């Protein structure tokens, strides 16, 4: 009997060890095959323009981060630029500078800043346009990612349900304080700038905000709506009666007669959120280390694409309406300012976010209790946009 049990134990251990070794062998063999394929592919690429990294680039389908879609839908707009993103497939493009291919990108649509940062943390995304606060949160959690520069400011509105008994932010505050029930609010991403702005603005107005459903004494309960696509349905179904979101979602809520904009950033008390920066161009540290020329070229593309979006609003709305699934008229309500200039307004905005997020206890790791200057040193790298702060 003892021999049988020893044999059984030995058998189990052998199976486990063989499985592990077997996988390694299989992986090695597969890697060898892949290496051979890669060598063949590389040889072909080298015929064109040397070794070229194959990377993943992302942006959202809203008006804060989706401007690079212009390179996809109308590449001819930028054909005179020396550095270009040229589509080579439905979701693939090449980055070309002075006729030389620098990189190939697979493009993905991200659903939120949190989604983008999680993908970057998992090495599944190399560069992305997304919310700056999401990137700061990601860095705080241990991700090696950097904010390279701004792409826009403004364009965030607070939306209430159509039949909500308040029409301005001040009326919302009064109502929240006097209502016996908490107001159900939502956010599309737990670490995105609109959520941070809404929560901080409420807290500055002495409103208690909580994400804990058991906290029935809170004035406002905030729940995760899990993505921009759920903003409008959450209002129409009555799950929440309030959220802050990026353009064009607030405008779309009004257009569909489901919600009403009760405040834009400029309307919030104190004036500190006027033309406030939100989304930035971000990438992984190892991309900066290994391919700085690619990052530099992307920064150049980001600059002229956003310049176009700033100066040709109607054309931009027309070109992006199909991608965003919205009427041009809704997109024309866009109140975002597009700019990649690392200016005082941007720095002030980032500093405010750092102070707000520390104040709200959002930083629990590497950025906990850090000053804005320290965060600027750790998380930001402006050299690709020609600024030195």
């Amino acid at each position, binding site marked *: *009997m*003892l021999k049988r*049990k*020893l044999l*059984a*134990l030995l058998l*189990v*251990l052998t199976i*486990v060890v063989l499985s*592990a070794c077997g996988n390694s062998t299989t992986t090695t063999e597969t890697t060898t095959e892949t290496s051979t394929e890669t060598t063949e592919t590389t040889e072909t690429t080298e015929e064109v323009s040397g070794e070229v990294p194959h990377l993943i680039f992302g942006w959202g389908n809203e008006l804060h981060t989706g401007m690079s879609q212009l390179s996809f839908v109308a590449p001819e707009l930028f054909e005179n630029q020396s550095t270009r993103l040229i589509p080579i497939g439905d979701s693939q493009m090449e980055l070309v500078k002075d006729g030389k291919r620098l990189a190939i990108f697979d493009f993905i649509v991200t659903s*939120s800043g*949190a*989604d983008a*940062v*999680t993908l970057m*943390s*998992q*090495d599944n995304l190399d560069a992305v346009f997304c919310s700056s606060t999401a990137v700061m*949160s*990601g860095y705080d*959690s*241990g*991700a090696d990612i950097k904010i390279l520069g701004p792409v826009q400011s403004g364009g965030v509105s607070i939306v209430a349900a159509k039949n909500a008994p308040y029409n301005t932010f001040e009326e919302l505050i009064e109502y929240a304080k006097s209502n*016996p*029930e908490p107001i*159900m609010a*939502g956010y599309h*991403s*737990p*670490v995105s700038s609109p959520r941070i702005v809404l929560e901080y603005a409420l807290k500055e107005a002495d409103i208690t905000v909580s*994400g*804990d*459903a*058991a906290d*029935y004494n809170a004035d406002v*309960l905030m*729940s*995760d*709506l*899990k*993505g921009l696509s*759920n903003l409008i*349905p*959450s209002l129409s*179904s*009555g*799950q*929440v009666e309030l959220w802050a979101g990026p353009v064009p979602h607030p405008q779309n809520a009004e257009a569909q007669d489901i919600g009403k904009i009760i405040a834009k950033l400029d309307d919030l008390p104190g004036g500190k959120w006027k033309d406030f920066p939100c989304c930035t161009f971000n990438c992984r540290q190892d991309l900066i280390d290994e391919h700085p020329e690619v990052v530099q070229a992307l920064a150049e593309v980001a600059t002229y694409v956003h310049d176009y979006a700033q100066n040709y609003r109607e054309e931009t709305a027309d070109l992006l309406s199909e991608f965003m699934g919205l009427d041009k008229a809704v997109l024309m309500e866009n109140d975002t300012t597009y700019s990649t200039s690392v200016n005082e307004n941007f720095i002030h905005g980032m500093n405010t976010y750092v102070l707000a997020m520390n104040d709200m206890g959002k930083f629990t790791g590497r950025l906990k209790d850090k000053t804005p200057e320290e965060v600027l040193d750790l998380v930001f790298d402006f050299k690709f946009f020609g600024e030195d702060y």
Partner: protein
Amino acid sequence: MKKKNNVFDYILPFVLPVLFLIFWQTTALRINNNAIIPTVDRVLENFINFFNDIIGIGTIPMNIGYSLMRVFLGYSFAALIALPLGLLMGYFRPVRALFENFINIFKPVPSISWQPIVLGWFGIMSLARITNLDYGPIFAKLDNFKFSMLSIIAIGSFFPIWLGTLDGVTGVRRVLIESAEVLGASKKNIFFDVLIPAAGPSIMSGLRAGLTSAWAALVAAEMLPGSMTGLGYMISHARELSRMDVVVTGIICIGFIGACFDGMFRLLINKKFSWGKDVR
């Protein structure tokens, strides 16, 4: 003669889990990225701080409690419909003819597919809102049990229970029923004293599978937009915060509780319905 317990009887069940933990920790340390795979100690820390707030959504026991309650409510509702329906369909051919093909159309559809539909049907309707309670602590707690979530769980558990019951009743040996008829038993006696006990093992298997499905459907239910509590919500929210250690913590809780449920059923079946194995 009673078998003497050997030391290996105690060691063997732990061999694989220990090897798995070693493999996990080694891999996590090598990858060194919490967003991909957290270390064992990081996950353990969440269990050590079991009664502390986790990622701003309350404590783990609180979220487990909400999940358990949702499963209990959804599963009970499913059993209330599936058991009598399965019994009637098994015993009365016309009832079976009426329902069987219709139900089989929906059987292969995963419960998660029903998310958009139940959200549209039920919206924010919950136990709190249907009872018209005034807002307070009880309302706040009951409002967490939204009908949309409960229906996803109920749909998930309905089919295994129904099928186990139907198979159990149709699988009762004809000779048992005929013997009872010969001995003068009424239809009511046959139904309650012969059919249901004979179908018992299969019904219990169906209930066991139904509970497993309910627990699996729970995660899909709690990922519905607007959900604020539960293990499923904890997992999806943690993923957005790149807190894979919390995701793994949630998975372990779900697995452990699911295994406990299954163990309870196994004990019950072995104790009360062990004869079912011999009959087959």
